[in-house]
């Protein structure tokens, strides 16, 4: 593979000749959504931070350290590992953007820490992240898949699971605090990260589907078995990680439902069906509302016939409408 790349003629990337429109669509989305942690007024959360108990503070710092580890892996190993497998030069360019934004995400947690915590607390949490067996196990499961020489499509599966599933045991906590009007600026920053990870999971999942559809039936079955097998393995680790972190606050069951919901979404990004049935995937509405302010289940069909609510407009002007 490497030799093949080196014997190719070096070619300048031409964005005016696309092999796959999705590359430009996602490049535009990611660049328009670019942000830095400095734009979020984290210091406004200092009074709110003071209302948390010592245990809640420690939990929050640990959760964010765990998220930092995943972002670090995706920045330095995950996204770069996908580059040699890129089908188009534009895909490589998108992956460089993804890699860089993961570095921004990892850096953001340190901004939160420096705003809210003492050096001693921060150092303790980073030490914890190196020693926690569940956190290390999920990092290892993903890194093993990223190793050089591995199947390009298996790497994409692992990458989508990291982007669309593994982060969520951590993302739950700032959404929970936000639903209780705590650490709301921190939650705003986390929502920017969640938005980026959603695009990453969508795009890498899309590229997976393009490769998957080229395979014969046996090849597809093997990959699908691999994907569900890896999901089971990661889910097992996430369950233990969740129990260890959230048992004391009594939130474990609520977090697990959130895991099921996000595991299903990760599988959908790969084009697969859901794994967890609806009855164990109905997320606490307060958490859904923290994710998306206008997101109570919109169901006109089941309504009593009262008038429907038209959404409050964000910016929707588009010159293409002609009525």
């Amino acid at each position: 593979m490497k030799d093949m790349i080196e014997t190719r003629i070096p070619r300048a990337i031409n964005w005016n000749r696309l092999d796959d429109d999705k590359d430009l669509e996602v490049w535009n989305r990611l660049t328009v959504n670019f942000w830095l942690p400095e734009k979020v007024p984290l210091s406004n959360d200092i009074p709110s931070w003071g209302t948390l108990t010592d245990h809640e503070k420690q939990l929050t710092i640990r959760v964010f350290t765990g998220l930092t580890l995943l972002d670090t892996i995706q920045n330095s190993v995950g996204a770069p590992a996908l580059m040699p497998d890129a089908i188009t030069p534009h895909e490589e360019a998108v992956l460089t953007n993804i890699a860089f934004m993961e570095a921004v995400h990892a850096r953001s947690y340190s901004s939160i820490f420096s705003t809210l915590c003492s050096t001693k607390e921060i150092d303790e949490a980073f030490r914890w992240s190196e020693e926690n067996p569940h956190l290390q196990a999920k990092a290892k499961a993903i890194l093993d898949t990223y190793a050089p020489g591995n199947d390009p499509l298996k790497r994409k599966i692992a990458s989508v699971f990291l982007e669309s599933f593994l982060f969520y045991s951590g993302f739950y906590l700032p959404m929970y605090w936000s639903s209780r009007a705590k650490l709301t600026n921190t939650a705003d920053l986390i929502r920017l990260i969640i938005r980026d990870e959603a695009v990453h999971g969508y795009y890498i999942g899309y590229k997976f589907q393009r490769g998957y559809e080229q395979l014969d039936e046996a090849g597809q079955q093997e990959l699908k078995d691999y994907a569900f097998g890896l999901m089971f393995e990661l889910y097992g680790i996430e369950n233990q990680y969740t129990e260890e972190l959230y048992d004391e606050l009594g939130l474990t069951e609520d977090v697990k439902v959130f895991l099921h919901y996000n595991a299903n979404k990760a599988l959908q990004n790969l084009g697969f069906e859901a794994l967890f049935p609806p009855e164990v995937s109905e997320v606490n509405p307060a958490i859904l509302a923290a994710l998306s302010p206008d997101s109570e289940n919109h169901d006109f069909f089941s309504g009593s016939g009262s008038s429907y609510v038209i959404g409050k407009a964000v910016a929707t002007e588009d010159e293409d409408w002609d009525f």
Partner: protein
Amino acid sequence: MSRQFPALVYFSSKSGNTHRFVTRLGIEAARISEDPDAPLPDPQEDFVLICPTYADGQGRGAVPKQVIRFLNDATKRAHLVGVIGSGNRNFGATYALSGHVIAEKCNVPLLYTFELAGTETDISRVRAGLEKIGRPLCSTAQ
């Protein structure tokens, strides 16, 4: 005929989430192609539109260009009776925004919103809902 549904028109990009949703609904539906040169569906009866969202952080570009092109034709949108929007809650305020935008532009109800390719719950609710609004439509058409 055991069930009667309104006609369905939908858009799905190559990532295929909306296409998978429509396939699982098991109701005949016309797809708006991504290819700008492909002919657009031409519904001759009342129909529901299912549309995913592609908005950036500010909500721009929520409705796919091809769907706007389809709706710009007054004879096509004349039969639109409702819209179902999809998206991802991870995009916060712009979740399923295309459904809201189309509902407002075309003055039709936003019937339902769902995420990605939808859940089993979404499929059964939308099937039941479409059946509910399809029955009177189909009987008056006769």
